[in-house]
Every structure is written in C-alpha cells, then in structure tokens.
C-alpha cells in the first residue's frame, strides 16, 4: 500500500515536473520596448514624434549631413572634386558621367522616401485621432510641409518620380505603380505647402527654425513657383513673407560670418528652415551625423579644420570673386594652420586650392575634423527670399525697379559689414538695369551670396544655364561632356527599376 502510494507520488511528481512549463505560453509575442504602430498614435504628442522623426531623418549623413547635399554641391559649377582619390561615385556626379548604379543616388534616394514615409505616418495618425480642426490640422500641416520639402528636392533631381501620399503598411500595394509626371508632383507640392501655409503658426515655440512655420511654408511656395517660372505667384508669396517679416521673426543677421559659426542660435532670424545637428552626438543609422566639414575641409590641415578635400571649388571660382567681398573671405579657406604654421593654399598637402570655409571653419562642438558638427544648416534663409522676390518681380515687371533693387541692396548692405567694420564693397545696385541684365545680376548675386549652400545646381537647372556654365568660354568648371538632354536629371537607382519595371523609362541618356 505504502509502496503503491510512493509510486503514485512519484508519477505525480514527474508529471508535475513535465507540465510545469508547458501550456504557460500561447506563443504570442508580447514585446517590451518595441514601438508597435497600432498602439503608437494615441495623442497629438505621439503624432508629433513621427513629425520629429521626419525632421531628424533629414539631418542624416545620407541627406543634409553628406550624401545628398554633396551631390548637389559637386553637380554645380561652384565645387569640383579636390582629391581625385575620392570614390568614383562622387567624381561621376561631378564629371557628368554617372550611370544608373551611382552609389550616391543609391544611398540618398531611399532616405528621402523614408522621410516622406514618416510624414505620411504622422498624417494618417493625426487623421485617425479625429481631432478638432484647429488641433489636428496644424499637425497635418507640419507633416505635409516636410513631405513637400522632400518631394521638392526629389522632383528637381529626378523629374518624374513615384509619388506616395499615404502611409504604407503593405509595400506590395505600391509595387507596380508608375512614375508620376513632374508637373503633377509640383501640383501636389503646392497643395501641401498651401495647406501648411494655412494651418501652421506664424512662429513655432521659441521661434525655433528647425520646424516649419507659416513663413517657412510661404517661402517654399515662393521658391517652388520660381522654379516653375510662375513668377507672379512666386513674387506674391515672397512678398507675403517680406511684408510679414516682423510677424514671422525674419531678418538678415548683421554679420555674414554669423550664419556659419556653430552653434548657430536655434531661432536665428535669418533661418527660414534649418537642419539642426547637435554637436558630438552620434545618433545611429547616420542620424545627426554631419560630415560636411571634413568633406570640404583641407586634407593635411591641423585639427579641427582638417578634412578630406573632397569638394573643392575650382581656382576660377576663387579668382573671379572680387577679393573686396567680405563674403569671399567667409566662404573660403585660402590659408590654414598646418603643423602649427599658417600656410597659404599653394602649399596645401593634397589639393592646392582655396577650400570651402562655410562648414569647416566654425564647426563648433565636434569630433576630429569637424564631424558631428554643431551646425544648424539653412535649407533656406531670408536672404534667398529677398533674392526670389527681386528675381520674380523683375520677371513680372520687365526690368528692375526700386523695390527689386531694394531687396538686392539689403543683402549687399549686410555684406559690407566686415565683422563690425563698415566697408564700401559690394556697392549698391544702380537703378536702370534692363530685365535680362538685372536677372543676370540676381543670378550672380545668388551664386555668391548662397555659395556652396546647395542652391547653385538648382539655379543652373532652372535657368538652363548648363551649356554656358560648363561649356562656355567663362566656365568656372569646364565639362566638355555636359549634355543638356541628359544631365539636368539624375538617373533613378537601377535597383528600383528592377524591383518595379513599371517605373520605366529611365531618365534619358542613362
């Protein structure tokens, strides 16, 4: 009997042991510390995190930290390859012999669409919350601004592109779409910006410039219309910004150098839209990784102004720029400490040309060579709005007038402030210039005022200046093989056409 009981106890023990763990799980995953989309957007603040994510993803190595902006810089006539030991992909972008497998395009293309995806997620999240209009629409407006900003870059770079304006949860649902014509993309950009203009506040909290405001959206509307050569609308929008400059908190900073002295204030009045990098912080996945200082810095120079001499202007850019112009001094490094001794560019180690100074000279709190800089880069600044207004007005009023000249002279007056000391160069623009002459003057002013700020290539493309800029007798950076039928657009990444053949045809010539 006891034996039986013992045995029974033993069986019970074993089966207990056995079943101890079985059945206490249904194999459903209950992740902790993972952000699941279905539960993420519960409050407006959650929507805000996706909007912030989109901003943050613009401040990445792939976009404003290096790849995308370097491609724009090299494509223009204002920066050439310095060290020819730099990767072929950069030389190909610069030399107009890229193919559809170019690695720069391959790496920045997906990032723009990831920014758009984040903006779309925020929009869908905000809509799902069914907030009152005055609470929900400003959120949607901010996200739509970011979407417009991204597509504006994409459409200028690639022309017809796939256009996505909803949050994708099943990528296969867009696997077979065709490209959207550039004209339609522009219409969508304008719709987004108009919505943003309507619903965004005049200023963001603390007047911070890395978030879009009503002024930001309006300024971009002016820029988009200018690109579309709709000068009347461009002028109207620019004028709206200028008329409201006090309300929006806009103005020109007194010293041109202060635009490029990290850490720039987060509410710098000249910034219309700033891409904010925080010094010495590695955000992971390329986030917050600004590499423009070393990309433009001098190879062999003493830290922290040393770099890799990748994007270096041709000598002509330096030589043709009047040395009395303070902006030339701010824009160029023509001498540098090398092993403790100040050396002219003629004895620089690698590339014996003056280098771009706007990024490397005052990178602020940063890593060796200025990486992980503390810059807030101006994607657009108020000087550009003035220039847009001047150009658009000249187009619509068939020549210069006091108003358009006035805009230019505001910029020139600021340039005469040489770090607190007033000079008399550049002098004011005289009255009486004809339309073409004045517009040439504005384009030249844009080239110098906004030098190395990634606008020149778009100006060349917009005004179809390529033949002159690269093949003309006064070409700053001659490229005999520039082909206007091919080179105003970059090729879509080959892999995208492989995954979705409906994206064909590839841009001409690739």
């Amino acid at each position: 009997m006891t034996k039986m009981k013992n045995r029974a106890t033993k069986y019970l023990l074993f089966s207990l042991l056995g079943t101890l763990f079985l059945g206490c799980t249904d194999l459903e995953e209950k992740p902790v510390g993972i952000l699941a989309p279905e539960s993420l957007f519960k409050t407006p603040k959650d929507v805000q995190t996706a909007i912030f994510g989109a901003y943050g993803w613009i401040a990445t190595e792939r976009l404003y930290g290096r790849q995308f902006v370097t491609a724009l810089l090299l494509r223009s006539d204002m920066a050439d390859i310095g060290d020819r030991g730099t990767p072929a992909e950069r030389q190909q972008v610069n030399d107009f012999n890229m193919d559809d497998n170019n690695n720069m395009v391959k790496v920045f293309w997906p990032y723009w669409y990831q920014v758009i995806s984040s903006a779309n997620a925020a929009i869908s999240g905000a809509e799902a919350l069914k907030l009152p209009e005055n609470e929900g629409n400003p959120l949607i407006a901010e996200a739509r601004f970011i979407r417009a900003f991204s597509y504006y870059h994409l459409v200028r770079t690639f022309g017809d592109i796939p256009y996505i304006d909803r949050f994708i949860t099943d990528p296969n649902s867009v696997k077979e779409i065709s490209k959207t014509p550039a004209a339609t993309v522009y219409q969508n950009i304008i719709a987004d910006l108009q919505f943003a203009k309507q619903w965004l506040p005049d200023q963001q909290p603390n007047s911070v410039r890395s978030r879009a405001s009503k002024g930001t959206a309006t300024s971009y509307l002016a820029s988009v219309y200018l690109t579309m050569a709709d000068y009347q609308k461009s002028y109207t929008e620019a004028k709206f910004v200028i008329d409201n400059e006090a309300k929006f908190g806009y103005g020109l900073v007194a010293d041109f150098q202060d635009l490029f002295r990290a850490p720039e204030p987060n509410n710098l009045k000249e910034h219309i839209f700033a891409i904010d990098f925080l010094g010495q912080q590695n955000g992971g996945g390329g986030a917050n990784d600004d590499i423009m200082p070393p990309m433009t810095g001098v190879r062999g120079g003493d830290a922290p102004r040393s770099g890799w001499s990748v994007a270096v202007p041709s000598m002509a850019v330096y030589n043709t720029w009047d040395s009395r112009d303070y902006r030339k001094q701010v824009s160029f490094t023509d001498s540098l400490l090398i092993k403790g001794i100040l050396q002219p560019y003629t004895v620089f180690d690698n590339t014996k040309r003056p280098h771009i100074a706007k990024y490397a000279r005052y990178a602020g709190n940063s890593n060796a060579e200025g990486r992980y800089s503390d810059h807030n880069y101006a994607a657009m600044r108020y000087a550009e709005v003035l220039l847009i207004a001047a150009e658009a007005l000249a187009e619509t009023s068939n020549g210069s007038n006091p108003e358009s000249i006035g805009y230019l002279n505001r910029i020139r007056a600021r340039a005469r402030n040489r770090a607190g000391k007033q000079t008399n160069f550049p002098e004011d623009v005289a009255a009486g210039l004809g339309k073409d002459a004045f517009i040439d003057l504005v384009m030249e002013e844009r080239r110098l005022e906004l030098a190395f700020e990634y606008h020149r290539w778009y100006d060349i493309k917009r005004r179809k200046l390529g033949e002159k800029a690269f093949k003309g007798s006064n070409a700053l950076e001659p490229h005999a093989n520039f082909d206007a039928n091919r080179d105003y657009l970059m090729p879509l990444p080959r892999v995208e056409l492989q995954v979705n053949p409906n994206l064909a045809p590839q841009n001409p010539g690739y």
Partner: protein
Amino acid sequence: MKRYFYLKSRSPHRLMVSVLCQFLYLGLLSAMSYARPLDVSVGGTVMGTDNNAPLPGVSVVVKGTGQGTTTNTSGEFKLNVPSPASVLVFSFVGYLSQEVTVGNRQIIDIRLEADVKALSEVVVVGYGTVKKSDITGSVSSVSAEEMTAYPATGAVQALQGRAAGVQIQANNGEPGAAYKVRIRGGTSINASSDPIYVVDGFVGGAIPPPEDIASLEVLKDASATAIYGSRGANGVIMITTKRGKTGKPRIELNTSISSQNEINRLDLLSPTQFVTYIKEARPTYVTPGASTDWQDQIFRTGGIQNHQLSISGGSDAVSYYLSGALYDQKGVILNSGFKRFSITSNVEVKANSKLKIGLNLFAQRNSKQQAYTQEGSGGLTPGVVASAFKFEPDQAIRDPQTGRFTISRVNDPTDNPYAIATQLQNESVNDRVQGNLFAEYDIIDHLKFRTTLGATTNSGRSGYFAPTTLNVGRSVGGEASVNGSKSTQLLNENYLTYSRVFGGIHDFSLMGGYSYQSSSSESWGGTGQSFITDAVSYWNLDGSSVWQSPNSSLVESQIKSFYSRLNYSLLDRYLFTANIRRDGSSNFSRNNKFATFPSGAFAWKMSNEPFMQNSNLISQWKWRVSYGLTGNQAIAPYQTLARFSNVFTVIDGVPVNAVRPTTVANDDLTWETTAQFDVGTDISLFKNRINLVLDYYRMVTRDLLFSVQLPQYSGYATQLQNIGSVENKGFEFTINTRNLVGDLKWNTDFNFSMNRNKVLTLPGGTDLEYSASPGHLVGLGSTHILREGYPVGSFLGWIYDGVYQEGDDFLPGGGFERTPGGEKYRDINGKDAQGNLTGQPDGKLNSDDRTIVGNPNPKFIWGLNNELSYKGFDLNVFFQGSQGNDILSYSLMELNLLAGNNNATTEALNRWTPANTNTNVPKASAGRSRRVSTRWIYNGSYVRLKNLALGYNFPSALTQKLGMTKLRLYASAQNILTFTKYPGYDPEVNYASSGATDSNRNLGLDYGSYPNAKSYTVGLNIGF
C-alpha cells in the same frame, strides 16, 4: 598545482581558483577515506587478443561492489578484493567484457577478445543513444583524444578538420574569437546557418572546455537532425561530458604550455622604397626620415597555458566527475589576450533500482582583452593589423617635436598601430552558469521515463575606452562606453522510451515526449565623451561631460515541441527509423506558429546476410538511405511585427522623442524548410582494419527567409518573406585505417568533403547586389551578388586587364584611368537605346561591365590525421586543407592600389614606370579609384600542418614508484607549415562574416584580421 594557480592568477580569478582547489582537495580526502583497505590482493596484466599488446585503461571492477581500478600503460592492474569468491569484471571499449572469479589466485592475466562484429560503441543521438552499428543516419563522431590533441580556445576549434562535411573557420586569429561552423554548407542567406549544440541533452547549453568532453557527435542528415525539428536544418552537434566510472577515485592532471607567434607577415616596402613610391604619387612629399617596422612593433611572442585537473570515480550508487580547467592565452599582438576558467561537476545517483538522478553543474568565466581588428570602418581608428601594414614606415612611434604618437601624414590622420595597440582599451567578461538536472525512472520493464530541467544564464560586460593619447580620443576628450547583457534559457524535456526485442528478431524502440524552452536576453549600455583624465578608463561615465544616447533592450522567445522516434530492426539486418517533431515557436508570425518535421531512414546491414556472413574480407557492410524535413527558425524574435524605430532628432538644441516607421509586418512568415536526401554506406574490411564511410547528400532549402528588396519609395528597404531557395549537395568520404598493429602501430584517418552551394531561386528572379567591405574603403559600391545558379557569396567586379601602355586606346568611363601605366579594365557589356543590357561591349566602362569574378566556396576540404606509436612513444601528424576557394583581399587592395595613401607590399616594386612597362602592376597615381576586380581575387587554397605532436608514456615501473597510473610527456607544434599561393598573410580569412546574414553571404574576405598563430607546446598528462 595550487602554487601555480596563485602565482599566475590575477585577481578576478583568484577567488574561483581558490574555491576550486579546496573543492578538489576535499573531494580527494573524502574519496581516499572511502577507499578503505580490503582483504585479498590480486594483480595481473590485460592484453588484447587482436595484437597481443597490453591494454591500458581497461576497467577492472569487483562485481556487485563498485570497487575497481583501471590498467596502467603497461596493461597492469592491482587491487584488493573482499574475498576469494569475488568476481572481477574486465571491460574496455571495442572488446568483449570478461568476468573472472578470483579464487586463490594472486595473479590474473587476462586476454580480452576484440569485439570485431559490433563496434559496440554507442553513439549519442537526440533523446537517446544508438549502437554505432545500428545507425541509420549520417553521424560523425569525434573522440576525446582528438578534441584535446592540442590546446584550443574551445571545443569548436578542436573540431577543425576532424569530421567529414564539417567546415570550421576561424573568424580571425584573435584569442577567444568565435569560430564559424558549417555542416554541409550554408543552408540559408538571411537566417543563420550555424548548427545547434546539444550538451548532455541541453539544447543551446554551454559548450564545455575540450578536456571535459567525453564524446562529440555531428548529426548531419535529416533522419538524425529532424528530431530537433525547426532548429535542425544546419546540423546538430551533440556533446557528452565526462562522467565518473565505477572504481576508486581517478585524478587526472593535464597541463601544457605553448609559445606562439604570428603565422606570417607581409613583405612591405622599406622606408627608402616607400619614399620613392610615395613621391611618384605625391611629388611634394617630404619624409620625416625615420624607420619603423610596424609589424615588429605590434607583434610579440604570445603563449598559452592550458591546465585541467579532474577527479572522478564512483560506487554502485554514486558516480562523480569534478573538473576545473584554465586556459590562459597571451595574444601575439600587444595588449590582447583571452582567459577561460571553468568548473564542472557531474554527479549521478542511483536512488534505487528504478530511479536515477543526476545533476550537471557548469560555471565558466571568459575574459577577453581585444586588440582592435576586424574594423567595420577604419576611419580614424584603423585596426592594429591593417594599420601595421599601411602606416608609413618612415615615421617614428612618437613625433620627435610634440612627443605624441605619430599620425599618418599621407592620408586620413590616423594613429599609428603601436599607439592603437597600446592605448585603446577593449575588454569583455562573460560569466556562464548552468545547471541541468535529470531523473530517469524505469516504470515497468522496457519502459523508461526521463525528465530534465536545465537552466543556463550568461552575463556579460564589455568596456571600451579611447584615451586622449590617441587622435580619435583627443578630439573628444576621451571616449568610453560600457555595455552589459544577460541572457537566460530554461529547458524542460520529458520523454518515455519503450525498448523491447520480440521473438528474438524484432528489435523495437519507441520514444516520445515533449519539451518547453524559453529564453530571454537583455542588454543595456552607455557611452560618454570628454573626461577629466584618462585614468578613469571606462569606469567613470558619470564623469563625462558629453553623453551619448544610452540603450537598453529585452527580447523573449519560447518554443514548445512534441517529438517521437521509432526504431525497428529486423533480424539485425533491416533497420528502420522514423522521426517526427512538431514545433511551435513564438518567433513566427501569428498565422504560422506550428509546423511538423518528419523524416525516415532505412539501413541494410548487408554483411549480416547469410551470403556474406563468413567473409574474411568484409567485417561489416551497411547501406543507408534517408530523407526528411528540417527547419531553420533562426531569425530574431519580433521580426514579423511592424514597428517604428527611434530617430535621434534635435529640436531647439535638445534631443526629443522621435520615431519613424521602419518595419512592416508579415503575418504569414514561417520557418525555412530544408529537405535533405542522403545515401551512404559504411564498410569495414579486414576485421575493422579499414573503415570507410561514404555519403552523398542533396539539400534544398525552400521558403528562404529572405529580406526581399521592397520598392524603396515605399519608405521601407526590405521585408522578410519566405521566398527563394538554395541548394547544397555534396559528397563526403571518411576512411580510418589501422595500417600497422604490432609494436609499431600506425593509424590513419582521412576525411574529405565537397559541397556545392547554389542559389536556385530569388524573388522575381532578379539579381541582388550587396556590399561587404571596410567602411573607409569608400566608393566600392556593391561588392557581391546573389544570382540564380551561382553560389552565395559570389564576388562582383570588373575584369582587370593589366596596365595601359603608351599608344593604347583608352576606354572612357567615370573614375577609370586613361593614361599609360593606368589600370585597364575590360569592356564586356553595354546598353541599347531602350536601356537594356546587350551583353556586347559598348566602348565605355561603367557598372554594366561588372561580372561575377570569384567564388569563395571551396571545391573541397579535407583533414588527414596520422598516429604512430611504438612502445611508449606516440606521434601525431595532422594536416588540414581547403581547395579551390577564392579570396577577395581588401588588405591587398588597400595596400597595392598605389594611390599614395599608404605603404604597399613589395609587389609595388614592380609597378609600371616608363622604364618598367612589362608589368601588371599599375603606376603610382594619386587619383586612382578603388574597385573590386580580378586584380584582388586570389586562389585561397591551402594545406596546413595543423598539429605535429610527439609524446612519451613513461613505463609503469617508473610511474608506479611515483604513485601514478599514467605519465605522458609530449611536445607539439601547431600551424607550423602552410602551403598556399595566397599572397596575403594567411589564407584562413573571414572578414565581416559574423551574424546570421553576413556569415552566409560574406565569405572569403580578407582585411587586416588578427593573425592565426603558430605554436610550440610542451605538456604533461598525469593520472593518479
């Protein structure tokens, strides 16, 4: 012994060492008191009938008591028995046991009959054991002797070259570095192809040190692995640790000391040659005029101390095995090393005639001091080895003016290799504690129940510090990070086994059970920059003034399973095996939590048929055939779920909460399934003097867990889907021969494996390019391609056609040279007006002209082991090799690009100059772009003398005087000879090949790895 430990041990180990020593000491005391003197003394010699040689190690036990001993090296034994009526049982592996009544004899000489017929060794398979002769699947066994032939970082290293179909590669030669194991090739592309390890029945248990391993089995075909279902596709390595044997306590001490040096060096340019070369690329270069051999500066003579002390024994009721092992390696690069210290306790108790209970305990500490190599990107901190190759030889260690470490003057301002080796701190400590409890109960005759409960936990900490003495640390005021991790696994298995022979001819065994396994892993860490002083290393993160984002994570998963196996043997001639396992896994998508993995095998013991019974030639001949399905669920948990990820975003100067969508859900994702067919034969000839095993297999892995390229405009990069298939097929051959069996014995083991890996289908049939290269070698773009019909890991690049000469037509192309002495590439493809590739040259060079330029998979691999012994002497010669694999050398690409960015190998002396035009080496040119091409693809075949050992067993006359049962002294050398045409420094390369996806796709890449070492070892094996 004890003194040694105290002298050599540094503080972290001291406590454990002292505990171990006392533990062993107490064990010894108690065991000695237990061995009380008995009444009758007998002794004698045990010989084998097969060769008339004394048999050492034969177990001699007094029947029914558990008292016993083993024979010494001369086959002699001596023991006391309670009475003349006592019966002695002599048993030894490979021989038939014999029982002898003592009677009045004092000397009993015994001749044991070799067990020719059965090879009665048992082999451990999943949830049971099988007689070797009854195996129906493909299983390779590796013996304890082979595992300990030379000092090894761990058991996996010791397995290299030992088993057919098993490829083991060092990830690099770093002390303590992990090894990559492939059983019959890589079965996947994105999921891990690592086998699973089952240690004493614990799936995923800690791998014990080689010295504590009794046997190791590699399960290869589906009939053997399917019992592990969704984790069996990559093969299973079954490890059994040592147990106590009945008899008086046995103490064993195994100790060895090795001296190590780097296996090879590169021939680099001398300072003078370097200056001449660099001035051709950079005419304004001014040399500082120093002279430093950087390889001299970073390499040193390293060494290994490897010690193990064990005590084992047992009675009828209790058996025990206690062991402590210490492996202490000083790396051949300054400031690198690895220490492994472990204790093992295996105790089994027979509670009564029906119940057996056992507990295995294992604790191990690994500490590693890493030299910085295997860098993902050598930006400002290149790896020590890569830097020793490329750093300018005309610079001194310190700048004579500033007194600081020198910095490269020709390219990126990187620190010199000596500075990196001595200043950078990179350390990790891992503690593993594991317990595995089992109970086995004979419920009724033939029916057994076994239950196990195991828990293993692994805690790790790694620390990193770049002080301000380094360029990289100086710019940020010093950088430090500390990361912690902790993982826990629980496993409970329960199964019943029913075994019975019916009617003398139907041998029947049925096993069935269920298991539950859960695992969780945590990690956390922080990084800080800018410290008050370098002295705080990484132990004062709170003292940093620039904080980087901290991190933490938790991952949990569960598997529950049901499994069963039927073995049926008819007339000991026809063997059938059927397995089935049903697994449910939390890792998989909500629509596919469970799957079933069946397999079956049939074997025919042809030699047991009447017509072959009495063959003198053939002792055994068996045919095997098997087919089955196994799975691979080795993707990370939560991967089927959609998710948002954090984005580091700054608003108004401060980081804010920010996210973006990164992953889309896949509700239907399931495991990869590998269908494997295997046919093989086992043949033993001339009374087992020759044993042959041949296998052919074909595995097709379908439903590959594939990161399918999504349209990137969707905002997502890839999505895991079950698409595509990969094939591995091959042939394996093992032969063991006993060539000489007299006084002079000579055994040879040879194994040979060839595997052919091929991608069968890819999503949409489209090629998939990917990149795997050091990040600072910018501009390479895609370096690899996955293409249907070609092996995984194929290199993608241009065809190098040598050097342009004066008067050649220069092909145009962005970034391609167009001058005499420049690199010349072949134009092989172009596009038509519609943008389609034509396969015809188009007169220009671009990415269309790339093609598959190399295959890193070997045509075959092999191992050849020869053992000779004569009287007390033994000699072991072990060769291992790989044939027909290509290597893509990023090291040589960086060095010999000749763009004036760094030092070069002596190949640069043959560079093109107007005076030296008949060459394949281009001229020095500062603007040259890097690209993958046939110029950097090399034949990586090699033959390596892995081990050469000479040992001497001291005669028992001497050892007995010393109170020992065994005393062996040996000297050995590892990796002293390598035959290869590879111009890099070591053909055993594995850059960027860790992690599930990378280890499948990134093969045969070489970049600045920690070198393998050649070693000279002396050692002692002592038994008491």
